[in-house]
């Protein structure tokens, strides 16, 4: 079987195993939906200046997408990692031709499909339920690589957390500890001006920041353009995409290395 065949086999098995866990599937899609309903519909936004949710509704679309792009791969790959370790599946796979990166790539593919579907759902819900203005055009197709690269990046991080944590409980706790700060400190729901000036450069260390900025350049008409350099939002988005791609490769490689060859 070719490398492609091995990856396809691992992906099929991973997808079937996931799709047959009904509660896992339900909550994977329910989680972002409830976030949109709570913050987009119930809380709403008050563009009157100052405080949380003070921006127009369209500003927060990257945040809603970030919820699934960040949380789902972290928890899914992390817990899958723990399941594999507890069931000696890595020990078994180490004696098959499947390579470590192939395993992670296969599970990343599954996550890209699952999270891609969840992202479409969020996008549709936000458009339908929240009063957002989105500039429609071909540039929106760039959302696909943003989601795919974001998922790959956090699948890699999920594998790293899975390696560091010694149980499924540990993976969940570690995922939450990493994901929550990232979610709120990556220009998603909290605008930079709400943070202390000394902290703002630190948000550049979060990979999610580049996802949020890029998606915002593509979807939010009132986006502020940095002074100097390019002024075209799509060009600015492509720069963010490039940074995200580099970070994704780094996290994926480290994540693949974290997949155990030995016990």
């Amino acid at each position, binding site marked *: *079987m070719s490398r492609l065949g091995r990856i396809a086999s691992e992906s099929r098995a991973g997808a079937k195993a996931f799709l*047959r866990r009904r509660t896992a599937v339900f909550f994977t899609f329910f989680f972002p939906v409830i976030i949109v309903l709570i913050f987009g519909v119930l809380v709403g936004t008050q563009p009157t200046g100052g405080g949380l949710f003070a921006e127009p509704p369209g500003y927060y679309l990257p945040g809603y997408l970030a919820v699934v792009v960040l949380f789902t791969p972290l928890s899914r790959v992390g817990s899958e990692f723990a399941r594999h370790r507890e069931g*000696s*599946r890595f020990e078994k796979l180490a004696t098959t031709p499947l390579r470590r990166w192939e395993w992670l790539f296969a599970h990343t593919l599954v996550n890209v499909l699952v999270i891609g579907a969840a992202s479409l759902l969020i996008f549709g819900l936000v458009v339908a339920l929240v009063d957002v203005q989105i500039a429609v055009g071909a540039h929106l197709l760039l959302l696909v690589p943003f989601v795919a690269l974001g998922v790959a990046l956090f699948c890699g991080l999920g594998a790293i957390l899975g390696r560091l944590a010694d149980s499924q409980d540990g993976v969940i706790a570690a995922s939450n500890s990493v994901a929550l700060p990232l979610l709120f400190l990556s220009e998603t729901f909290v605008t930079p001006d709400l943070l202390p000036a000394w902290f703002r450069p630190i948000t550049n260390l979060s990979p999610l920041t580049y996802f949020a900025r890029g998606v915002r350049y593509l979807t939010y008409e009132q986006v502020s353009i940095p002074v100097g350099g390019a002024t075209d939002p799509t060009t600015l988005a492509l720069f963010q995409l490039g940074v995200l791609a580099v970070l994704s490769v780094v996290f994926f490689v480290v994540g693949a290395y974290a997949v155990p060859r*030995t016990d």
Partner: protein
Amino acid sequence: MNATLLRPAYDPFSLAASAVSVGSLARRERTLYPPSQHTSTMDAAVVAENVTKQYGDTVAVDDVSLSVPAGTVFGLIGPNGAGKTSLVRCLTGTTDSTGEVSLLGSEPTHVERARIGLLPQSFSPPERLTVRELLGYYANLYDEARDVDSVLSEVGLDDAADTWYEELSGGQQRRACVGITLVNDPDVLFLDEPTTGIDPTGRRDLWTLIEDLTAEGTTVFLTSHSMDEVERLADQVAMLADGRVIAEGTPGALVAEHGGDSRLVVRTEASADRLADTEFRVEASAGRLTFHGVDATRIDDAVDALTTAGIEYESFTWTEPTLEDVYLELTGRAFRGGPASGSAGEQASAPQPDAEPAEVER
């Protein structure tokens, strides 16, 4: 005074029956190697030299050397915690260790993966795939693989092929796991306690399967804490205690060297004095006489001696030394194999000189 030998049907789970090594009588013809004589590396599928594995301060495998001739079954026995699983990991390259390991002539991590099969001890595949899907999933990881249906048939799961793994019984799950290790038709198969949780029928089916595999040339490295399993299947046996190999050889040679003699225990109130003139060495204890050194062909002679001496008896039992006796002799402690739950296939058995496996009633 006629007595009938009531040998019980062979039940590997019966502590009593385990004292009668009927299993060894059923062994097929194979090339056997003398004890403690390692074959050359050229003939060996697996060679370990001075292999040591430590977890922190704990030495799990301590300077182990062994050689597994190609096409044979090598049985590694020892109680829980003896280091069996750690040694399997060393041999398959799924853990780091010191010392030298050669698997099919290569380092374990460099060997062609399609040539080896591993069933880890606590292996649990994706639980919501059917057995057919599971076998297909693992088969598709290899360039060439066996037909899934034929493997299903071999492990006796044709009828459960479309059942999710999690809905199988414990024994069926273990058989599915064995099937997974067979999909690539490996040259060397590592089975770490393969029959744990399998019912007696399933165990015997699996034993037959292992015998068939070795008849076709597959080398099997089998770990078990079931002495009867190893006695039946293994050409060579290594006993592991506290990470060290304490004995190695054919089951028969180990038993002959360390197991003591076979015995006939007679329930009677009679004194041993009345047998003083016989050729048997007889010891008396409360309510019983023990004839030492009575092999199966001499039971009738012993019974005749009882009759000649006019000794009335209630029953007698015959016991043959087993690998458990060898373990007791070499370590000074009883063999404790299985977990306390006593799941099928796992016996918490200790050598019991007074066990009554093959009872004869008057």
